[in-house]
């Protein structure tokens, strides 16, 4: 499967002259709150106004919790403001296997000053835990029956991204 991605990547890179609105990017996704690990690696491809991002979590080695994000960002202004939506299929090791917690992500992003060749971006994200399953424990889905049912399923956080981009 990885060979497919390599071929696609090479084809895209060879498809023609580089464009200012298309690039591959790789960098860091940082946040300072409890919950998702504070330092993660994010990478993706920007195609005009659309940016597709995969966030991987190297801190999984510390506690067997992996906070993975799949995001799409849509730039709505020339300055770099945009909206984002995504999915977080986080997993955490427990006795009996792994528990998977799936959250829906929505948010907004804004530009920060460039640091030399490194792009920076600020974002605010609302994460809603929709469903949890795995490890032989019953599946739990979000309920709006009361504040006690929903209270821990919603989290609002901010993040900062630093990325190095290569146009194609």
């Amino acid at each position: 499967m990885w060979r497919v991605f390599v071929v696609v990547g090479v084809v895209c890179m060879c498809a023609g002259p580089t464009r200012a609105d298309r690039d591959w990017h790789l960098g860091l996704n940082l946040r300072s709150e409890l919950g998702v690990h504070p330092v993660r690696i994010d990478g993706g491809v920007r195609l005009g106004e659309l940016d597709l991002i995969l966030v991987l979590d190297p801190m999984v080695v510390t506690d067997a919790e992996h906070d993975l994000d799949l995001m799409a960002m849509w730039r709505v202004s020339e300055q770099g403001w945009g909206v984002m939506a995504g999915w977080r299929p986080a997993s955490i090791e427990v006795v009996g296997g792994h528990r998977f917690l799936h959250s829906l992500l929505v948010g907004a992003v804004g530009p920060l000053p460039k640091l030399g060749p490194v792009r920076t971006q600020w974002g605010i994200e609302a994460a809603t835990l929709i469903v949890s399953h795995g490890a032989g424990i019953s599946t739990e889905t979000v309920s709006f029956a009361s504040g006690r049912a929903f209270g821990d399923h919603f989290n609002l956080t901010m993040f900062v991204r630093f990325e190095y981009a290569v146009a194609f």
Partner: protein
Amino acid sequence: MRLRSSAILVLLWFVGCDRPSPVVLCHNGNCVSPHDVARDDTIDALRESLALRHEGRPTIDGLEVDLLWHKGRCLFSHGVAESENASGAEELAAVIAEHLRSEGPVSFGGNSFTIFFELKVPIDPVDDRNQAGCAIDTFRTVRDAAVESGRELEVIFDSFEPRLLGALQEHPDRPRSEPGVTVGFSFDLGPGFPIDTDNHRLGDFAGLELDVVELHGGWITDTAMQALRQLGLEFCMLSYDLTIETLDAIDVYDPTYVVVSNAEFMRQWIER
């Protein structure tokens, strides 16, 4: 606050600190998965929660249950809105007593059992003394069962409302520790007014005997946590559900007790 917490996570990785192993308490006596809030503080959910097993032992270490004095009755109820069909507190006490008298371990820890009795706020402050009496009567039934069965019992009386803790501590029959039975007092701390009108400021609990503070890891600032640590209080961390955020709060703050609605997930996470 959060940057400090994140730095602590990184530091823990380097020094290889032990994982938290808190006392697991069943929130509102209802911690069977999938969780249904409509079954909070009900006898059926309580029995099912006490019956949970992990590797042949009870999954939980104890309970967090609510007591309410309402319309002349001592109820096992989350609040006035749920009181109409609520069981009496004497039935709650009988079920717990039956559990303490049963064969084998009564908690994941073995022979010890911990109960947080949360005193809910009566509509009329005139009933504060009745509410205290309600808690004392419930305690006595459970205490007698523990002593007769040779169990180690820990009972923590807890409330959002400082005047209820005061009424209990000033009551002539106030519960006290004895051999095999430990009695303590806890207060609940959450987002202050006007976000949550139930909550009082830390200073409102001045003058009371306090051993534990019950709080939610996502609703407390680092400033407040530092102050609470310096008061020598033990932490009881409440979560309505176990999410990445609430589990990380337990990792960072390492509370003595956790109050959860999904005991199986909690136990499997602690024992991983």
